[in-house]
């Protein structure tokens, strides 16, 4: 049995710091599963997260993610996401969903059981919050470890980052 057998396959729900929840449905977890770095030859992978801000509450549902695409560069311990190809998917999903499936943040893998963001990760997330253009106050960052998937919520105005707990 490898450590990845511990990775959740049912949906995951995280609690947001000021109420509301973030749902990562089963179908999203299934599309990430092949990229989990559970063997020495698997490179880091990543993409963007898209989904819905549910009406009349603070809940968020992740509906789409992008997978590594042409133009991305990945090594065992690094991943570079090219903006062009991922942007195309964001535009397409946003228009096809009557402007409700929106850019929520990014995800990438780590070759460690319980992932923690590196210095490079944190700097990148801060830069995303400043330089990306998006219609909300926050972005979400997901790191897929080999035993756990963790999620952070970044607040654009406070320039803060909070690790979210699972329900």
């Amino acid at each position, binding site marked *: 049995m490898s450590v990845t057998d511990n990775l959740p396959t049912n949906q995951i*729900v995280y609690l947001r710091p000021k109420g509301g929840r973030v749902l990562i449905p089963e179908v999203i977890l299934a599309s990430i599963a092949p990229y989990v770095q559970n063997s020495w030859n698997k490179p880091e992978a990543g993409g963007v997260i898209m989904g819905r801000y549910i009406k009349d509450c603070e809940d968020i549902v992740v509906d789409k993610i992008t997978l590594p695409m042409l133009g991305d560069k990945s090594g065992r311990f690094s991943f570079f996401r*090219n903006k062009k190809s991922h942007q195309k998917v964001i535009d397409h999903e946003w228009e096809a969903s009557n402007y409700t499936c929106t850019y929520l943040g990014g995800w990438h893998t780590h070759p460690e059981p319980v992932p923690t963001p590196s210095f490079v990760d944190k700097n990148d997330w801060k830069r995303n919050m400043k330089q990306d253009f998006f219609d909300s106050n926050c972005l979400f960052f997901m790191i897929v470890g080999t035993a756990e998937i963790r999620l952070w919520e970044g607040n654009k105005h406070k320039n803060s980052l909070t690790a979210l707990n699972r329900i």
Partner: protein
Amino acid sequence: MADIQKYFTKFHEAIKLKRFEENSTLVEKRDIILNKLAAGLKKNFEDKDESVPKYNWFNQGSYEMGTGIKPINSDYDIDVGISFKIAKDDYSDPVDVKKWVYEALVGHTKRVEVRRPCVTVFYQKEGETEYHVDLAVYSDEECNSDGKKYLAKGKLNSSSNNKVWDHSEPCKLTNLINDHYSGDDHKQFVRVVRYLKRWKDNNFKIDGNAAPIGIGLTITSYDYYTPKKDLVDVFANKYNYNDLSALKNVVIRMISCFATYYDNGTSSERLKTYLPVEPRCDVFEKMTDNQMADFKKQLNALLDALNIAEDEVDPVAACESLQKIFGDDFPVPEKSDTAQKKGPAIITSSASA
């Protein structure tokens, strides 16, 4: 939590059957039958040179309680009470009185039957029964020395011990149900009853006593319902009703009231619910032990679906869980209907490690 209430509201609009005043076909059928009854009684009694019995009529049942739903695998029915101004003691055989009604109406449609609790007129269209009108026949309380109303029970060929006058309080029952709560709380109570009735139609076979009867579900709701609403504006005293929570509360209490009863060395687990008026019988008494076990199993499945819907973050998935248990009249929204519209997003490249 996502706002599931609006989907319950849409579901309710889809299943509810409006009262007489609003439902012209049923009113029409009822009035035709009442006219036919008056004419038939007059003719039959005058032919015998006897005085025509006096009576009054009233609406009863789910229409009068405002708890009717559109049937999905049976026909529409209307319940009317016919209260004859006679003393029951003058008519030892109650079926004789039911025959007055039967003989006045027989031939009106292809099928008129004396059933145990009532006389039924069936309306058919292309061979299928489309409507039926149930006429319950009573001996009026004004004419009985004890001041009570009695229902005539029995079929044409019933043995004498199956022909009885049963003390009955149909109007008192209607009033109890209608006056239990008032205003918006009463409206939520009625919605909960209708949800349970559609759940019943969607999850039980229609033959025999496989399904808990509608009046039984109404009485259990009467016993267990409490209003569930969230205060959303203290100053305006505005509440948002939470039908999921109200229904769940009733279902939990129903499940917890199943008890084991012992009788002659055998035991059975049953939900006993008594009419709050005469004849104060157990409304589920006709269900067999196996049917009771299925009733409980289905209630647990309903509770599971309600729990999933309550916990679910995605309103689409919540409504899918409810549609499975309530049928296609429960709406499942498009994803885009459940979310806020957002402006465009432009991302930068990203490096992680």
